[in-house]
């Protein structure tokens, strides 16, 4: 991350008035920033969006009264744009009336400076805005490191609140077969390395199909398809992810066997249905998770892969949502611990 305090930032000046535009750009360049300018809101949005791919702007200085697209419309569009929502905006305007200033702030502007802009005040406001942005970026990066991008996005959009909501989705549990024996047979450093490789591959497979890994316990993981963000065809997505996971383990094994190491095997259980998803924990420490019968069933199915000697087991609800060429074989009803009635179990064809 670039250290912005006291150093150059990339700024965009949006003003339809040429004198204002030149003067503002001049003030900012004298303060050491690099400045681009746009003559109306539409052009500014185009430039901001184009810059996202390369080097994004750090801050927008926005006039309000403009033809084609005025400042209020720009603020509204920025709020609706996921990529640009975090961009700090300082309104520089000679709008009349406090109501207009309030409206700017309500629409998400960071600050309001009336024209003609005092250069000293401008410098102070820009410094403060950039510093705030830096802190926000840092915080977002931290959230991303400890949560999935979906959870981070959900938190940014709807804020953090303990409590759950009912969602339809698919839950997956997976772990490494015979992991304990494996751990005892090799130095701990090798186990850590194996786990890191394993998790990297599994995350790739799961997030590639829209799933979210929300728990890692030892060699096991839990993933959700359909929360926090809704996912169409969540069951099929989970099954496809499971097939990718098996394929990745096969590739990993080819590598391991070539290096004289033992191959590993994984078991995966998937169940589909309603669950309660949300943040559980305390205000200080919380995780995003799902609970409910569906979750318990997925865990039981995963454990049952040892008994059934099959890599991927799913319930009837998941089986019902598997379009060809996805295929599964009925293994009959199984009485799981903690379940009142026997559950139909299906093994997904994995080769």
């Amino acid at each position: 991350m670039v250290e912005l305090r006291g150093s150059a930032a990339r700024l965009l000046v949006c003003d339809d008035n040429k004198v204002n535009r030149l003067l503002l750009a001049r003030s900012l360049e004298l303060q050491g920033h690099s400045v681009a300018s746009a003559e109306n809101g539409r052009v500014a949005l185009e430039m901001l969006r184009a810059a996202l791919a390369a080097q994004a702007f750090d801050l927008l200085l926005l006039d309000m009264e403009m033809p084609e697209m005025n400042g209020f419309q720009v603020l509204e569009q920025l709020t609706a744009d996921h990529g640009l929502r975090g961009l700090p905006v300082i309104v520089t305007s000679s709008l009349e009336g406090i109501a207009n200033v309030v409206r700017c702030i309500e629409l998400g502007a960071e600050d309001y400076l009336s024209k003609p802009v005092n250069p000293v005040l401008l410098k102070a406001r820009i410094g403060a805005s950039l510093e705030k942005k830096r802190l926000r970026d840092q915080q977002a990066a931290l959230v991303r490191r400890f949560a999935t991008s979906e959870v981070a996005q959900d938190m940014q959009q709807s804020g953090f609140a303990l409590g759950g909501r009912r969602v339809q989705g698919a839950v997956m549990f997976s772990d490494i077969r015979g992991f304990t024996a494996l751990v005892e047979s090799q130095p701990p450093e090798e186990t850590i390395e194996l786990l890191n490789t394993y998790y990297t591959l599994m995350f790739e497979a799961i997030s590639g199909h829209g799933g979210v890994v929300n728990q890692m316990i030892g060699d096991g993981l839990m993933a959700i398809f359909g929360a926090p963000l809704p996912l169409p065809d969540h069951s099929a997505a989970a099954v496809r992810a499971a097939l990718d996971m098996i394929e990745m383990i096969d590739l990993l094994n080819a590598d391991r066997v070539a290096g004289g190491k033992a191959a590993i095997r994984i078991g995966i259980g998937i169940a589909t249905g309603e669950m309660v998803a949300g943040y559980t924990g305390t205000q200080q420490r919380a995780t995003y998770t799902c609970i409910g019968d569906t979750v318990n069933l997925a865990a039981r199915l995963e454990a049952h892969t040892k008994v059934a000697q099959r890599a991927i087991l799913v319930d009837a609800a998941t089986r019902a949502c598997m379009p060809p060429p996805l295929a599964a074989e009925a293994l009959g009803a199984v009485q799981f611990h903690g379940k009142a009635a026997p559950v139909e179990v299906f093994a997904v064809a994995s080769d």
Partner: protein
Amino acid sequence: MVEGIIDRSTFAELQASAGEDFVNELIDTFFEEVPPMFDELRAALAAGNVDAFRRAAHSLKSNSQTFGALNLGAMARELELGGLPADAAPIDALAHEYAGAKAALTALRHG
């Protein structure tokens, strides 16, 4: 003459913060930009376009204040807030004030 039309402290501050050479260029830009603003005011009045009238008056106000042409800015502000006038008289008055401000700025520019 200059004292009454251009506020000297505003102008000096502008020169100090942006640089004299830059301010001279900015004055040239202002002189180029103003006639189209007057055209816009007159056209908006003829067409009964309140928004365009307000925007043009707003632009003139903003730039006048930048250079310290406080009276010109105040007159433009009245037009900005007053809606469409009954006739072109206020625009003519504004143009007269601008002619004075232009002469004063030209003098300052070479001073």
